[in-house]
């Protein structure tokens, strides 16, 4: 990928972060760091990888399920920018009557492929979508963004065994492996490692990648097989709160609120962040 294109993806990821700060200031509470760990994933998926069109209901489109639904605030600005709904909706984020809340509602928000929020459901939803698309001989693929904490849920592994059983090569899981949940490190709260081995044992093709390295993400998504009888699991190693120096790997910022000068300073921090 050209330097200019990579710079564009970087700019989009930064914009996702600054928009997240802006929107959460309206709601007065939100999951900043869960978006920040996934910002590069959103940038690459929505601005490079996914086959989507101006019609958010295009039957053969690629889908993205936000199984970690609390990152939706980072996706709303993208969907508005794509023209799926008025940009002005963002200014009333989470206010009474707004279609936009902390967890996404597919009936209210064009471009949201499934309503989520109850952790552990998303891979099963993706499994059903992938089965349906395969049955209907659609080329559409299904991406499921999973939090690492929600891998504690048993239903994830029910879906994992079924996707391999049904040979769903059109199902791609992405684990935002930021290492932290609300109570702290995933490995302290409830150990999920060895993650790659577990998914391999369940019959998935597993890749690991630096989830903030745009070139690596582009290369990995570009290399996804067009035809496969194996579901794909991408473990994206990320940093919770990435892109805001003082939020990175912080235990206290899973949920939070930045107002006024603090929000402005955070936005400046995001804009001046030194990417290596």
């Amino acid at each position: 990928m050209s330097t200019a294109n990579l710079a564009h993806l970087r700019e989009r990821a930064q914009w996702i972060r600054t928009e997240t700060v802006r929107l959460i200031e309206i709601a007065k509470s939100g999951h900043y760091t869960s978006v920040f760990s996934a910002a590069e994933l959103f940038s690459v998926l929505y601005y490079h990888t996914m086959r989507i069109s101006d019609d958010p209901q295009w039957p053969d489109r690629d889908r993205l399920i936000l199984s970690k639904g609390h990152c939706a605030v980072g996706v709303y600005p993208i969907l508005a920018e794509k023209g799926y709904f008025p940009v002005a909706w963002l200014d009333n984020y989470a206010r009474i009557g707004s279609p936009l809340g902390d967890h996404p509602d597919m009936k209210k928000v064009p471009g949201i492929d499934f309503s989520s929020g109850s952790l552990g459901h998303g891979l099963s939803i993706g499994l059903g979508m992938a089965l349906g698309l395969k049955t209907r001989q659609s080329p559409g693929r299904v991406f499921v963004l999973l939090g690492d904490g929600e891998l504690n849920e048993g239903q994830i592994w029910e879906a994992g065994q079924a996707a391999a059983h049904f040979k769903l090569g059109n199902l791609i899981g992405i684990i935002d492996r930021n290492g932290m949940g609300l109570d702290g490190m995933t490995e302290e709260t409830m150990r999920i490692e060895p993650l790659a081995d577990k998914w391999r044992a369940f019959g998935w093709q597993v890749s690991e990648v630096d989830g903030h390295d745009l070139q690596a993400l582009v290369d990995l998504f570009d290399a996804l097989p067009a035809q496969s009888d194996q579901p794909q699991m991408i473990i994206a190693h990320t940093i919770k709160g990435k892109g805001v120096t003082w939020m990175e790997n912080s235990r206290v910022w899973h949920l939070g609120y930045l107002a006024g000068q603090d929000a402005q300073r955070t936005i400046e921090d995001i804009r001046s962040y030194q990417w290596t």
Partner: protein
Amino acid sequence: MTTIDIHSAGIEMQEQDSWHLGMLRTQAHSAIAARVLAELADSDPRICVLTADLGFSNRTVEFSYRHPERFFNLGIAEQNMVSAAAGLATTGMIPYVATFASFLGLLCCEHIRTDCAYPNLPVRLLGHHAGISLGYYGTSHHATEDIGIMRSIANLKIICPADAYSLEHALRQTVHEEGPIYFRLGRGREADAYQPGEGWEYGKVSILRRGGDAVIFANGIMVAAARQAAESLAQEGITVTVADLHTIQPFDTEGVLSLIEETRQVFVAEEHNTRGGVATAVADAIVDNGMAGVKLVRIGFPSDEYSAIAAPYPLYQYYGLDAVGVAERVRTVLR
């Protein structure tokens, strides 16, 4: 009690005592469902069937023989199955999900609510062997709270057919219905409740008999029991209306209240706890519409205890959920 040989599939058994899952009977509710769905699927590519390692119990294997590419056995993982059905529905499919009512209505309650009903997707949930029809399998396999749970979920329709005849009507009339539907099915091996030609309309209470002393609202297996009870009561000079309240959601408030108005003496007979089910739905309609002077008698399972252990028929008898029990209850109240 008759002892059932599990290898005797296809052989006519003494129905009154037999109930084994492995025994095939053509009028079993789920066998009817599989046949009707296979027929509907011949001309409708959207229809698919999911089950959780119960294909030989609920006879959805019959569907799989005809449409193998649209039959998905998800293994013993019911919550994954219900969520996957919701995902399937977003791609334009109409998934019919079949498993025991205890697992659908209780284990998968949140998945039905959050993944099927909240996005209002056309997922069809076939909860079979509802009530205590799994007999001495015990409370883990009984579903006597499912209607109460399902009733509280927005967007969800609930239908409880009385027999194979009405189940077939229910399936055919609701194929194009928007949003999710919970079909509450029994074993379906009881005698038919309907006579050929009697009307069955989705969303409308079916009046099966007219009388002047009371009205009995029933559904599921209690419809045949109520009809039989009404016949024996008639010989004693007590005449009752028998109405099949098969569609619990949307609730036919007008139809139900107009029948209540005739005598203001109401019995509700259901294979469900007396709290939260159809009796409560009828009580809600009475209270919400300010209808005064109504006596409501609930015939069902006691809500504050778990079921005794026995085969289904002895259990129905024990709890008064048969023709004799219903007649006795009506007689006692009206006397």
